[in-house]
């Protein structure tokens, strides 16, 4: 029984986590947020991350061949100081939601963070 806020709190326990939000990519609406947003603004970060998510979702090149439209799972952006990790949430209906986690590159482990965020995204839509 994990709600949005519990999931965001858990995401903030991932080593190196700076901030996390749950975003609707069809509108850029921030459905929930924890920690710090980019430049202190979760909503602006959500709007920017939405552009990225949309580019991936709407272009079939990013889906597996013969996958009948199965979505991409993650989007990963690295900069010298940060990891930006987007994880799509599959709720069984068209939420268009994704988790957006920003990590401090000095203290984060990208592979582990990706696995942890996957688990959180799955628990969010668990019965």
């Amino acid at each position: 029984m994990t709600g949005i806020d519990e999931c965001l709190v858990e995401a903030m326990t991932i080593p190196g986590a700076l901030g996390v939000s749950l975003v609707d990519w069809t509108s850029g609406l921030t459905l929930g947020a924890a920690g710090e947003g980019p430049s202190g603004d979760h909503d602006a970060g959500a709007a920017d991350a939405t552009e990225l998510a949309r580019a991936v979702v709407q272009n079939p090149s990013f889906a597996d061949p013969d996958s009948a439209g199965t979505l991409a799972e993650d989007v990963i952006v690295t900069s010298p100081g940060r990891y930006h990790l987007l994880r799509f949430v599959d709720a069984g209906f068209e939420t268009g939601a994704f988790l957006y986690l920003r990590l401090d590159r000095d203290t984060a482990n990208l592979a582990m963070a990706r696995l942890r965020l996957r688990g959180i995204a799955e628990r969010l839509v668990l019965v």
Partner: protein
Amino acid sequence: MDLQTRSPLVSRRRPQLLASGRTLGDVVAELAAGRRTGIVQSTTGAVHLVDGAVLQVESAGALDLPTLLVRSGRIPAQELLDLARSCEQPLPKALLDSGRVGRGVLELCHLTALSDAAFLALPQDSGPVRFQEDVRPQDGVIRTVDVPTLRAAVARRRALLDRIWPCPRLDVAPLRLSAAGTAGVGTRWSRGQRAVMHAADGRRTPLEIARLLGRPAFATLLDVRRLAAAGLVESPPEPDFGGLLAAPPRPSPPAVPTVRPTALPAGPVRLHGGSADPDIALLIRLRAALEARL
């Protein structure tokens, strides 16, 4: 049915009739700035406010929470109907206690239904607006959204539609396949987009297709614009009144189905040609049962 007779909720004040001529979003923003609590009702929808935050939005064209839950496969419609009839506590709590629906799914369904209804209702010219002060829904608070945040999201959705294919008439006119669409569709299109093409029979509007498929209105309109941009679907040409051989004019459907100002805008599902889906009939009964509980 009047809200007062449908609802045991106690309001200390009589409903106020607010000035019209603005969008419902404008009226809601003004009430939210004053941190008001109550239900705002117009011909395009209803918005529930608690301390200026949006708790729920209803619009006749949008999917509601029960429909989304059933469509997501979380709970069969009959089981949800039984639960709605028998539970003595608020339905969201009963759903969580039943173990059939997790809190995350409930919150996501709620926010999806809320933003879909806001997308349809808020930008419309409001007409007369009633505000019933201090009415609090008995079903409790699942999650609220700030009005400025919600309005910005609605504006981004409208802009996204126009960026894909700037033809708002597509949203309200009957949808049909173009010559290219009739010839077939490639595998690059998603299941949802193929379903929209299958339902485009030249009579149903995109909102009616959304209801038929049990999909959010916005997601369906998004697919319609993408398919139109690819030249696969189109709306019939507008009647040419100047020509002698013009087709007889047909009334253009309203942007959202009209709702009586005194009724909650949650009308029965009406589709051209009916539906073979037994879930639809069950969902209508479910909605009636839920309204009876309010």
